[in-house]
């Protein structure tokens, strides 16, 4: 048995399906779930031919018109019309697609969950190190460049502090040259090509997790970054921006700290606040863990998803 990623008996390829009807019958399929709006569109002809109900998840990338292929908005309207159910990953995106014409009765917010077993609570690190970590692809909306500038501002006050960015992507060169330009020296490191399996371990070394997400120049936005949920589950104090769905998971000064997006000074102040107020960390992280357990637990969210499937299929 070959078990390479995405190559196992559970994975089928749309382009390899010869006859949709036969395929659906043979594999006993009762519903299609597209995990992005673009995929929902791609599956519409398949849905038409097989009359299966179509569920579409809506993520950050789906909710911007910038850098989309020709006819995207028209396509989305068609999808809202023909699809049965839409599962935006946060309220913010639910609101967006509603504005674009998706009927409210077809919308259910389904927060993405994290596997709590992979991220057990270990509580804040109170040893005195000052390691700030940010994880995410190197694309504009992740806001790494803002974090680097904010870090530069506090660096002289906290000579022991370090900043680690974990991720790869199109802005790699830019991030590297920015680090040189800001003269961050050895206090900064960029780890790219880190396998997903190493993330929990790297996260455990962090003192503060920062998610400086922002709206990119082309309009690209986030939903709720998974890394925030993972950091919150682990018990690392989180500092993030009031961007997209993030305020739905973090309440400022309750289970973390929120700052305005794309605001270097505000972020620098918050970093300083976090580093100077270690005594708040335990309170933040306990509240955060509780929040994640209640609302972002993968097993609970999958059950909720199954419930939505059942509703759609007329079961219980």
């Amino acid at each position, binding site marked *: *048995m070959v078990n390479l990623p995405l190559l196992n008996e559970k994975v089928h390829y749309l382009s390899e399906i010869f*006859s949709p009807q036969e395929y659906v019958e043979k594999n006993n399929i009762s519903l299609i779930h597209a995990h992005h709006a673009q995929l929902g569109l*791609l599956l519409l002809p398949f849905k038409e031919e097989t009359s299966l109900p179509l569920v579409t998840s809506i993520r950050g990338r789906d909710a911007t018109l910038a850098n989309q292929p*020709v006819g995207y908005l*028209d396509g989305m309207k068609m999808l809202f019309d023909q699809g049965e159910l839409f599962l935006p990953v946060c309220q913010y995106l639910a609101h967006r697609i509603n504005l674009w014409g998706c009927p409210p009765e077809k919308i259910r917010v389904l927060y993405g969950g994290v596997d709590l077993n992979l991220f057990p609570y270990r509580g804040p690190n109170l040893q005195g190190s000052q390691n700030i970590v940010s994880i995410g692809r190197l694309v504009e909306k992740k806001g790494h460049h803002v974090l680097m500038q904010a870090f530069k501002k506090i660096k002289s006050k906290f000579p022991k502090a370090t900043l680690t960015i974990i991720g790869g992507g199109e802005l790699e060169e830019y991030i590297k040259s920015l680090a040189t330009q800001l003269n961050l020296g050895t206090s900064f490191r960029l780890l790219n090509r880190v396998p997903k399996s190493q993330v929990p371990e790297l996260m455990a070394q962090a003192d503060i997790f920062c998610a400086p997400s922002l709206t990119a120049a082309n309009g690209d936005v986030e939903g709720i970054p998974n890394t925030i949920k993972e950091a919150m589950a682990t018990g690392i104090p989180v500092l993030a921006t009031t961007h997209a769905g993030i305020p739905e998971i973090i309440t400022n000064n309750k289970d973390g700290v929120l700052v305005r997006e794309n605001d270097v000074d505000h972020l620098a102040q918050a970093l300083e606040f976090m580093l100077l107020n270690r005594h708040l960390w335990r309170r933040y992280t306990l509240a955060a863990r509780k929040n994640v357990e209640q609302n972002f637990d993968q097993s609970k969210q999958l059950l909720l998803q199954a419930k939505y499937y059942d509703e759609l299929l007329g079961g219980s």
Partner: protein
Amino acid sequence: MADFRLIKVTKGPKTLLIDNPTNFPLIGMGAQGAVFKLSEERCVKIYSNTLQAQMELEALKAGQHLAFFPRLYDFGENYIVMEYFNAPTLKEYLRNCTYIPESITRKLLYILGEMRKAQFTMVDAPLRHIFVMENEELKVIDHVNAFKRVHPVPLKLLRDLNMMLLKESFLSRVKKMEPATYEMWQQYFNENKLDYRNIPVTSGGDGEGVKVDSAISQTLIGAGHQGAVYRVSEDKCVKIYGKPEHCEMEQRILLANQDLTFIPKVYETGDNYVVMEYLVGPDLNTYLKKQTTLPPVVTKLLLEILTSQKQAGFKQIDAPLRHVFVTNSGFKMVDHVYSFSRLQERPLELFQNLHERGFLAEFLEQIKILDPATHAEWTRTPIPLTEEEVQMEIRDIPTVLPGKSSRRKGHGQKGYGGKKAKGHDKDRDHKKGKEHGKENDRKKGKDKDRDRKKEQGRDHDKGKDREHGGKRDSKDNKKHNSNKDQDKKKGNDRKKGSDKK
């Protein structure tokens, strides 16, 4: 500026040869002619063949009333000056689309309708010949075959849309917008449904791939030298051979080795066809293109194939990456025509393929750990990486096919013993790439270049009365084979082999 009439376009061995003493830039080249930009509004297409210039001229004249045709400005015996479009092609325009826009569908249907009205027999255009102007107005170029080829249904357009995963949404829209057109297409496809027991493939002759009837091209998975492969159902495909000899050779190898896990299941055989299991999944070359390191499991599974080939008495031990498919029931390998008629002790083409992907060193290291003896055997002499060196190491041997019922029986099967048929139309020379491979991976960079080089070689050969290939097929064959020097000398011709006797 110099006169564009000074530019000379002639037919080369494979591609056109261009002698351009002017400053007019070359902006496109096809099989029949080359296009040079004259100004922001004009370009000139210069043909190597005046007949084709005439054909296109006739079509352009017939279409001047159509807004989507390029304006015709001037013409001569071997050239046509026409409108130049500085715009993206429809293929570029639709990039990343997952559902074809309504406006584009409407415009395409309009164009096809007008072509029909103008009584073109070729009611079709590939996406790369359609330009999208700023106001989304479409323009169509290249009408050489407008009155020559018969495409009542836009086969090329549908093929291209299919590759971009847009065919289904296009058809869905057509069904709603022009039900009559949709019905007509469906009827055409039903009438031209593949009946593999009634074979439409013919051998392309010397150095050519098989010719495939384009009417049934919608289910074509791949076409190569010996045959074409079509999907016939959810889990079956049929390989149709240009020559019954090839068919029998491969059929018997497949049937005698059905117990080997990497051999695709065979369901039915005929004189010119084999119905076998359709392999779902990417070929290994496509798969490895997306990897940054060589997964050890890949090495392990490849080694298993090669080891079981050896144990099963295969004469040619190899597993070219594009012939290996990663399916959810393991690695499968296709194309075994020459497994018993070429003697090759180490997987040279696999080495070459892995080298191209940058994984050869890693592969050998992993082999060294898994099977030190095999590693030692493979690396005793340096691994050849050029085509020429590789060819020197492969020897043609009299075909000794395994028996149908019991393996390694059946020496000297009628017509095969000692008679190495066909020259050396090695699979990798296939004009159209692999037979079993997925179509959209066919024409990629290096492979394409390599193929083109070979094509050139092959065509050169044509003019030489096929001295080499021809003789190899004759009774002299044995003599040649036994003469090492001769063989070496001809090693290089192996790949240029002729299909003709």
